[in-house]
Structures are given as structure tokens and as C-alpha cells.
């Protein structure tokens, strides 16, 4: 009894010294990062105001307020004899452009998705080391590094740059925008989905192998069913991102709402800008709804 008490006390003492040993150091890290981030924030403001000579008074000046209210009132249709958002003709045009934008986004995610599906299996680390298909080959190792570098390259180049180059080569339209968006998202989707494949439980595959399945049959019966729902989730997520990015590639000449938005801005057709922004908003909500619906179907 006495012995037990003694050993319990020594255990308690050991635990206490352990926690005492670690607790101050974690506190120090928290304190240090808090001080550092405060210091960084202060230094940034000092730099902006003292070195760059930026003035908040200037930003919130009466002049700027007049510009802003003028712009908004023009967007709302003041001074315009016929605001675009009240015209059936411009509505028809805007809806057609939205439809074109939607086409571009669907085309883009299809390019990215098909490219990903064709390359994703050899791009998984588990395929390189042979644990995925239960056979390790030299061409598996080569194709892993090849595909992974293509992924890295294509997602490193922003879609805006790709779009500028492609529009420069082809004439402006849906296809250049879709190609640019598709190429960039191919790299992103490929990486995300290769990681999905890497995380798949391999025990069912081994069971299939022992019941006589070939590598192709294992892919079909074990890898694909396990990965498909996550593939779809990622594709839908990237589709939502793409529909938002279409407006940016539109700025450099790819078709759709983005291009018209830039043209209307440079022609000072402010009521058209309002209409296009509104159509764009509708389109984003529409795509999010469809994407959410499809995602629910996979559960």
C-alpha cells in the first residue's frame, strides 16, 4: 500500500516535470508569433504612410466621393435616355453572352477532367511504387515523373497568360478561353485527384487480386468506385472556380460576359455594365445550384 502510494507519487512528479518542461516553450512560441505579427502589421503601416507617402485623407477625399457617386448613379441609369437593363434587346444579348460563358466553362472543365482521367492513375505515388496495381515497372516510374511535371507546369502558368497567348494565335472566341482555363485546371485537378488515388485503401484491391482479377479489372472494380465520388466533387468545385474566372480571361479577348464587360466599360456604357454584372451574378448562382445538386447525388 505504502509502496503503491510512493510509486504513484513518483509517477505524478514525472508527469508534472514533463508538462512543466514542455508548457513554457509552447507559450513562448505563441507569444513570439503574436509579437511578430503585431510588429509586422505596425511596420507595414509605417511603410505605407511614411515611405510611400500614401494618405488616407486623400483616399477618402470629397473628390473621390463625387467620382464614386457619379459612377454608381450612371450605372443605375441616371442621365441615360434608355438604360440597357430596361431594354429587351440588351437582355437578350446579355443572356446569350451568359450562355456562351456557361458553354466555355463546361468545355473547360471537360478538357481538364478528361485530361485528368486519362493521366491520373500513373500520376499517383502508389502507382509508381507498385502498391496500387501490385506490379512495379520502370515505365510506371518514368510516366509518374513525366505526368507530374506536366501537372506542375500547367498549373504554374496562370490561365490569364495562357489565354493571352492562345487568343493571340487563334481568333477570339469560346474555344481559346476554354483551352486556357482547361489547361490550368488540368494541372490542379490532376494533382488533387492523384492524391485521392494515393489515399485509397488498398486492402480491397489485394483481395481482388487474390480472387484472380487482372490489373485492369482491379482499376475498374476497386480504384474507380473508391475514387469517383471524390473526383466528381473536385471537378464540380473547379467548375465553380472556372465560371468565376471566365470573366478574367474574357478581359483579354476570350468570348463571353468578361469580354463584353470590358468593352462596355471602355465605351462608358455604364448601364450595360450593370446588366452584365447582374447576369454574371445569376450565372454564378445557377452554377452553384447545379453543382450542389450534383454533389448531393454522389452521396
Amino acid at each position: 500500500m505504502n509502496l503503491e502510494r510512493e510509486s504513484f507519487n513518483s509517477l505524478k512528479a514525472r508527469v508534472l516535470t514533463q508538462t512543466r518542461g514542455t508548457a513554457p516553450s509552447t507559450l513562448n512560441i505563441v507569444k513570439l508569433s503574436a509579437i511578430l505579427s503585431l510588429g509586422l502589421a505596425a511596420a507595414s503601416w509605417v511603410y505605407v504612410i511614411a515611405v510611400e507617402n500614401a494618405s488616407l485623407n486623400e483616399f477618402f477625399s470629397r473628390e473621390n466621393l463625387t467620382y464614386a457617386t457619379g459612377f454608381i448613379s450612371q450605372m443605375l441609369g441616371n442621365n441615360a435616355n434608355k438604360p440597357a437593363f430596361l431594354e429587351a434587346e440588351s437582355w437578350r444579348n446579355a443572356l446569350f453572352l451568359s450562355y456562351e460563358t456557361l458553354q466555355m466553362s463546361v468545355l473547360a472543365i471537360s478538357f481538364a477532367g478528361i485530361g485528368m482521367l486519362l493521366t491520373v492513375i500513373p500520376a499517383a505515388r502508389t502507382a509508381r511504387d507498385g502498391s496500387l496495381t501490385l506490379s512495379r515497372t520502370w515505365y510506371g516510374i518514368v510516366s509518374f515523373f513525366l505526368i507530374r511535371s506536366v501537372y506542375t507546369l500547367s498549373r504554374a502558368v496562370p490561365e490569364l497568360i495562357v489565354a493571352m497567348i492562345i487568343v493571340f494565335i487563334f481568333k477570339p472566341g469560346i474555344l481559346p478561353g476554354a483551352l486556357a482555363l482547361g489547361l490550368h485546371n488540368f494541372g490542379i485537378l490532376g494533382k488533387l485527384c492523384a492524391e485521392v488515388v494515393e489515399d485509397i485503401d488498398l486492402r480491397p484491391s489485394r483481395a481482388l487480386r487474390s480472387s484472380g482479377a487482372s490489373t485492369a479489372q482491379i482499376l475498374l472494380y476497386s480504384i474507380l468506385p473508391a475514387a469517383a465520388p471524390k473526383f466528381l466533387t473536385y471537378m464540380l468545385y473547379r467548375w465553380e472556380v472556372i465560371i468565376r474566372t471566365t470573366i478574367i480571361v474574357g478581359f483579354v479577348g476570350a468570348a463571353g460576359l468578361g469580354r463584353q464587360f470590358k468593352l462596355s466599360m471602355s465605351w462608358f456604357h455604364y448601364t450595360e455594365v450593370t446588366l452584365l454584372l447582374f447576369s454574371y451574378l445569376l450565372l454564378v448562382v445557377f452554377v452553384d445550384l447545379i453543382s450542389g445538386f450534383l454533389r448531393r447525388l454522389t452521396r
Partner: protein
Amino acid sequence: MKALPMFQLNGVGKSYGMTAALAPLSLTIEQGETIALVGPSGAGKTTLLNILAGLIKPDTGQVKIEGYPPAALPPGPKRSRKVGIMHQQFDLIEQLPVIHNVLAGRLGEWSFFRSLFSLLVPQDVQLARAALSRVGIADKIHLRTSRLSGGEKQRVALARLSVQDPKAFLADEPVSSLDPVRAEDLLVMLTRLAIEENKTLVASLHSPELALRYFSRIIALRNGNIYFDRSASQINSEELAGLYILEKEAIDVESAASGKA
């Protein structure tokens, strides 16, 4: 003429790094025997089963599966007609309906296009339905596998094994994840299926009572050696219990020693 033994092991040993998983041992398993492998964890039961299944190559000795060395039975239909194995869990494709998991036992016999087509229009449905009704869950045939309970999943794994129709059933702790009632249920089905279809059955188990009740021959392993190998009728339960008690004392001694250090 006497049929070839299902498995013949001659001086088979296997070690992982420095630790010997299986001391060199020799063993003959005749066709139609139902054998329980018992022994504490780490005794080498799983290693032995994987060697029988041809999944692991032993370091020393020869294995003969119905007279063939495992190298002569490459993964594929040649091997899957001889031996089939089920594990304790995580063996099924959770996202697929039950029927495809059962039919996966046929993949060795099917071409790629037939297996692709089967995902759309299931092939050999009668076979799958019959196998499922033998394990008592024919009504679950179209359910998603992830929605089944642990016991039902093991039944699906058993149905897949019977659809695969190998000459020998191997089962690596098929009931260790189940509660006692469901464990006994599954063992009844497994042994009945093996006996009715004249299969050789080798299953590893933790429960000596279940081993005695349902199997004809008991092979006890301890530290990679055969501790005893006898027909079930010649074993008294004290002897079986001794297998674990000895091991428990050994652990006690070990832990006392490490406690001092």
C-alpha cells in the same frame, strides 16, 4: 489413386528482418480437411496463411499447392481456382452494391470487357443470388456495401469466396471483428459451405472453443513453431487453454524484466 494433398509444406520458414515469423516447419494438409489455426497474436498464423495463398514467398523450404509450386500458379485464374482467401475486414469495395462485390469473385474467369459490362448489366446474377441466399442475405443484393453491418460484410466476403469457387478456402481471422453470436454464425456458414462443397478449409481463430466445435483438425502455433497438430477429437480443452496461459506467463515475465530496465 489417392488425391494429391491440397498443401504440402517442407521446411518452410519466413522472417521479417531479424524476427522469425515462422520457424522452418513441415505440414501436410489433405483435401477436404477443415483446419483451425490457433495461437496467440504474433504466432505466425497470418504468415502461414499468406504463404498457403501464395501471397508471400517463404525464405526457406518448398510449398506445393496441389502438387504445384506457387511460381507455377501466377496471380490470375490459375491461382484463384486453387486457393481463395478472406480477411478479417476491409476486404470489400464499400462504394459498390453488394452484387458487384460478390461477382468480383468471378473476375478471374471474366474478360476485361465482360467485367466492364457487368458493372452496367450484372452477369451471372443467379450465381450471386444463390451465394447470397446461402449466407442468408439475399435481400441485401442491391444495397450499397457500406450500409451493411460488420457481420453482413463478412457474409458478403464469404459469398464472394464461394462464387470464386477455389479448391481451398483460407480465412484469416474471419470472425475477430464480430461479436460472439455473429462470430459463431459466420463460422457455422463457413464450415458448412466448405464441407458441403468438399473444400479444404484453413482458418485462423482466436477462440479455442470455436475451433474445437467446428473444425476437424487443430494446428496450434506459438512463436512461429507448431505447438501441437492434432485432430479435434484428441484434444482436451485444458491443453488448448495451455497454449494461451503459457504465453501469458511469458508476457508477464517479459514485462517484469522490462519494468526493471
